[in-house]
């Protein structure tokens, strides 16, 4: 078996007495698309923060292409090729859509090339019409797209998406699922999502987090049938 693109070994995070992530062993193959599900507080976002250098793990290691990045700075990890779309869209609100995308494209492209890349990305995400608007003035769904555009424009090897479909209309969810599949043709992705419909649209393999641990890891059909998963997660949602 080929070496994994991303691997965590006994990855743990502790804040005082709270331990949102406990000894997680996770592995993602080159070009894989993995969904991460689990109830609120299961440790998914903390897990993402450790992968991207926003939090330094209390214990364990994160390996990206075999290189230990557990103690690397966020900007160094970004340069190695991990991009993240955060749960609450993290964009440059006071700048135009074009400037947002440019800031990302500029990091990897020359001055001449960056302009073209920005135009292509705006086109691809259907944002050309609002290119000169300030991102802070856009609707929530569009801001999500802007952030996705930012992440894609740095051309990362691995893309982490934290609830990409949250707060989107049904049409937007569909469009996002399509885009995720399209991105997966050339990149590896980890997607945290609550929306089971969305997961059905995109996923093959699913990892379930519960109370900071990996509960189970299986193909999406089996996960949906798994009574344990229903109990801790789907059952709760159905009941709610």
């Amino acid at each position, binding site marked *: 078996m080929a070496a994994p693109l991303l691997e965590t070994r006994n990855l743990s995070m502790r804040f005082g007495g709270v331990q949102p992530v406990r000894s997680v062993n996770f592995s993602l193959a080159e070009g894989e698309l993995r969904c991460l599900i689990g109830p609120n507080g299961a440790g998914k976002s903390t897990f993402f923060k450790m992968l991207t250098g926003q939090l330094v793990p209390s214990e364990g290691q994160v390996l990206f292409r075999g290189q230990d990045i557990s103690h690397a700075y966020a900007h160094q990890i970004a340069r190695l090729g991990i991009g993240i779309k955060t749960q609450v869209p993290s964009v*440059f609100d006071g700048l135009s859509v074009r400037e947002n995308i440019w800031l990302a494209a500029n990091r990897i492209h020359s001055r001449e090339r960056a302009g073209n890349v920005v135009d292509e990305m705006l086109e691809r995400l259907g944002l050309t019409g609002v290119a000169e608007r300030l991102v802070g003035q856009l609707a929530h769904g569009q801001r999500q797209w802007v952030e996705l555009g930012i992440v894609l424009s740095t051309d990362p090897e691995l893309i982490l998406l934290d609830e990409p479909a949250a707060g989107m209309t049904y049409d937007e969810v569909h469009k996002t699922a399509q885009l995720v599949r399209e991105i997966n043709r050339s990149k590896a992705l980890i997607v945290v999502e609550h929306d089971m419909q969305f997961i059905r649209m995109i996923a093959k393999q699913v990892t379930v987090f519960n109370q900071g641990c990996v509960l189970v890891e299986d193909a999406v059909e089996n996960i949906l049938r798994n009574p344990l998963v229903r109990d801790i997660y789907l059952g709760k949602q159905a009941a709610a």
Partner: protein
Amino acid sequence: MNARVLNFLGLGLVGIVGVAFLILTPRLAELDTVLDLTVYMIMAILALSLALIWGYGGILCFGQSAFFGLGAYTYAIAMFNLGESTIPLLLAIALPAAFAALLGYFMFYGRISDVYLGVITLTVTLILFNSVNSTAGPEFHIGVARLGGFNGIPGIPPLNYPGNKAAVIDLEGMFYLSTAALLATYFGLRLLLASRFGRIIVGIRENERRAELLGYDPRAYKLATFTIGGALAGFAGCLFANWGNFVSPTIFGLAQSAQIIIWVIVGGRGTLIGPIVGCIGVQWLSAALGANQPSGSDWWARILANVPLILGIILVAFVLLVPKGLVPTLGEFGLWLVRSRARRVATGLKPKQAEKG
């Protein structure tokens, strides 16, 4: 008419007004007016240094006067020791820049948060104030230059043309130099802000975490911005020491450092022309109020003559009523006027056509 054209027109307008002011003022105004205007120009460079690091870099530096004062003192001390002004001028830029770099290194790489950054920079300038203030004795000297403590350093030799000690720049020359320096600073910063570096520092101001997750190291960019701001403030300090041939520790004091912040708040953060306008306006007002010492005992005259009080009121008024500052608010108002006019015209035309134009 799009933003780019407006931008270009604005630049042209500033250039024309600036050059006309530079050429015409000494021909039309009395010498003492020219002298007053010179110090406004110098202070406007100082205002621009904070406009860069606070307005664009998002770094609230409460102690910009530290670099200003260091520039002034460095020039004075080097000038007494060397006698020729080229190296003192360069030192007055380099030393504050180096100090800013050192201070900035500990603040940014130590991940000091915004509020503490303001506190630290204010403390630094007050420490400098107190230290220099207590160097009155003859034992405090650097080379032949006595620091003079609270008395300051009088009789600082003026700048000369590079390499020629005898060719001293006179008062009118100082006006030309200061105004030209202000214009050069303004256009230089415009270039800087239009560059990759400038766009990235604005991105970091908008969302530091996002910039980091895209692969930019905010610490390095902030440090560079802070250092450039320190160098500019030092340069302004050098010109200031020249203007009055005098420097004293009050240059590091609370009043001075607060004033710089007031200029930027009044004029508007996120613009360059704003802080220049704010600086000149506030200084002109202070001078006008200070000059009208009340002859009678009218209570309002006594209040008006209390310059710090008036400045405080202006600051509070702007923070509460015009939080964006003069220039951005006027700009928005102007844009609103243009747009509403365009809308009125457009309703008379075919609406689709107006959209595209």
